[in-house]
């Protein structure tokens, strides 16, 4: 086995296993993907490695290279979080998660495109221009980790990492027909991630299948990172999933997230997956998350509020872009931020600053924090009766480029089914449940099925997702591009 097409046909875990047994050379795997990533026809990559670097061979990842979302700091390698305001920035250090992946034998393949500072659901808000969906290049890949999702779906990368604040791993995974895991808040270090909303941001894998997600996640988590005071010692270990049935598994279907606003094709695919889950032995019952319908409103107070604070550091002094021609300090700040930030980032900064400003704090930020408590309690109550909460990942299939850029609220509604889990800090995974017709009827596009679990129950959730994935038998190879 040596032809690039044979290598690229393997899942990342299979490629890693083949390297370990000596069937494959790690260098051949790296080069097969490096040449594909360099030819990227989707604008999924913003930077591609020229060589394997100082990475050691061996380790659990077997030298199979990893595509990394732009917002992870990578020493000496461009890290702009999709923003003009960080133009030319090459950090003097790497994110902990990038270091852990490298130490486990996962060299850096390249940096992937994203919505600026992870604010968006389509990867159209990028200083590098939009990424395209490999299933239909007139459509978005979702976002904000759209470059990572498109690269994995198109087989320009064996696997990738992204970040999820309100759905930014799960929603692009759904729209690109791949697997995306958002871990429990605190399971993965945030050190070296260019921050969006610190109480919500969490890194996770975007992969071709559930097994790859488990393998990549297993090296991202582990011991608490002394450099991230919110990271935690992960209880237990993450093994490769093996479960083939769902006997005794109780699935709860929240009525609040499976009704109005979900495209009929998406609902049909979701229902069909529930039927398969029943055939595998699961029980499927409706459940209540009474405050889930208010999650999006609370999220769009809390996340912009945190963002407005985190993004105060971009002032043209220490790194990145500085507007020229300002002759006093304040003008230098305000013009740098005017020219350096894109429209969506400016909206979020304004929204967050407004919500935190004198006279509005209690009505917006204080209330939103209380809604967050209610949502956490809704999930805790549901997990007394159910093992997993299941929903469609996104309310629709991939939409055409430009379709939602003029209406911020329409774009935000993409996160309707994913934001509640983010506010509660619980783990969730999206797996492909099949294809559905686009609302205009002319395309068959991937649909995502979301499992959510109680905190630190990733292992059981990966097992259940694996069982359903095997029974569904989704074939994503149609998105593999000839390059």
């Amino acid at each position, binding site marked *: 086995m040596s032809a690039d097409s044979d290598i690229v046909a393997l899942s990342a875990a299979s490629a890693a296993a083949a390297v370990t047994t000596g069937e494959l050379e790690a260098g051949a795997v790296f080069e097969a993907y490096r040449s594909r990533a360099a030819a990227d026809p989707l604008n999924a990559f913003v930077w591609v490695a020229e060589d394997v670097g100082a990475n050691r061979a061996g380790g659990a990842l077997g030298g199979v290279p990893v595509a990394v979302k732009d917002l992870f700091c990578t020493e000496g390698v461009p890290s702009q979080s999709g923003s003009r305001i960080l133009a030319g920035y090459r950090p003097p250090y790497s994110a902990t998660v990038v270091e852990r992946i490298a130490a486990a034998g996962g060299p850096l393949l390249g940096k992937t495109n994203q919505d600026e500072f992870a604010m968006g659901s389509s990867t159209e808000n990028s200083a590098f221009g939009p990424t395209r969906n490999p299933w239909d290049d007139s459509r978005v890949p979702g976002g904000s980790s759209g470059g990572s999702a498109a690269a994995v779906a198109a087989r320009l990368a064996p696997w990738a990492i992204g970040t999820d604040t309100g759905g930014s791993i799960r929603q692009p995974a759904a729209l690109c027909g791949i697997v995306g895991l958002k871990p429990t808040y605190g399971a993965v270090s945030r050190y070296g991630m260019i921050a969006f909303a610190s109480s919500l941001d969490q890194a996770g894998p975007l992969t071709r299948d559930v097994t790859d997600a488990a393998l990549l996640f297993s090296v991202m988590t582990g011991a608490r990172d002394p450099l991230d005071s*919110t990271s935690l010692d992960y209880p237990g270990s993450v093994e490769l999933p093996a479960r083939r049935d769902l006997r005794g598994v109780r699935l709860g279907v929240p009525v609040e997230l499976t009704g109005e606003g979900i495209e009929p094709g998406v609902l049909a695919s979701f229902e069909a997956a529930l039927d398969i889950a029943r055939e595998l032995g699961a029980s499927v019952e409706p459940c209540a998350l009474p405050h889930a319908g208010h999650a999006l409103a609370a999220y769009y107070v809390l996340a912009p509020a945190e963002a407005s604070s985190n993004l105060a550091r971009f*002032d043209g002094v220490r790194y990145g872009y500085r507007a020229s021609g300002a002759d*006093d300090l304040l003008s230098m700040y305000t013009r740098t*931020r005017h020219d350096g930030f894109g429209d969506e980032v400016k909206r979020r900064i304004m929204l967050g600053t*407004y919500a935190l*400003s004198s006279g509005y704090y209690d009505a917006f930020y204080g209330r939103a924090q*209380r809604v*967050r408590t209610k949502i956490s309690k809704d999930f805790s109550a549901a997990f007394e009766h159910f093992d997993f909460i299941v929903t469609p990942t996104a309310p629709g299939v991939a939409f055409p480029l430009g379709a939602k850029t003029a209406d*911020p609220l329409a774009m935000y509604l993409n996160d309707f089914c994913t934001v509640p889990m983010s506010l509660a800090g619980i783990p969730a995974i999206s797996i492909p449940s099949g294809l559905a017709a686009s609302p205009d009827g002319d395309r068959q596009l991937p649909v995502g099925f979301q499992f959510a679990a109680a*905190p630190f129950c990733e292992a059981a959730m990966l097992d259940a997702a694996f069982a359903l994935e095997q029974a569904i038998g989704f074939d994503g190879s149609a998105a593999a591009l000839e390059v």
Partner: protein
Amino acid sequence: MSIDSGEVRHVARLARLELSEEEVERMAGELAGVLRHIATIGELDLDGVEPTSHVVSVENALRPDVPRPCLPRERALESAPEVADDGFAVPSPQA
């Protein structure tokens, strides 16, 4: 829920963000739409509900207090837009 252009200018000043007149008007319209959606959290009865600022309880996350070298000055300065006298150079606060 609405936000007028005066409030937009005030918030932009707080956020150290320059906005043109055209951008102020557009921002006012866009924010008003989002704020109308956000205002739906006003419908909920939240009396006596504790706020959540962080979902996991972490107390005193300390690391060993071991001296180590800090980032060398030249590395800290190598990404700076402008450097003077071994420091970050900025325009004068007074115009």
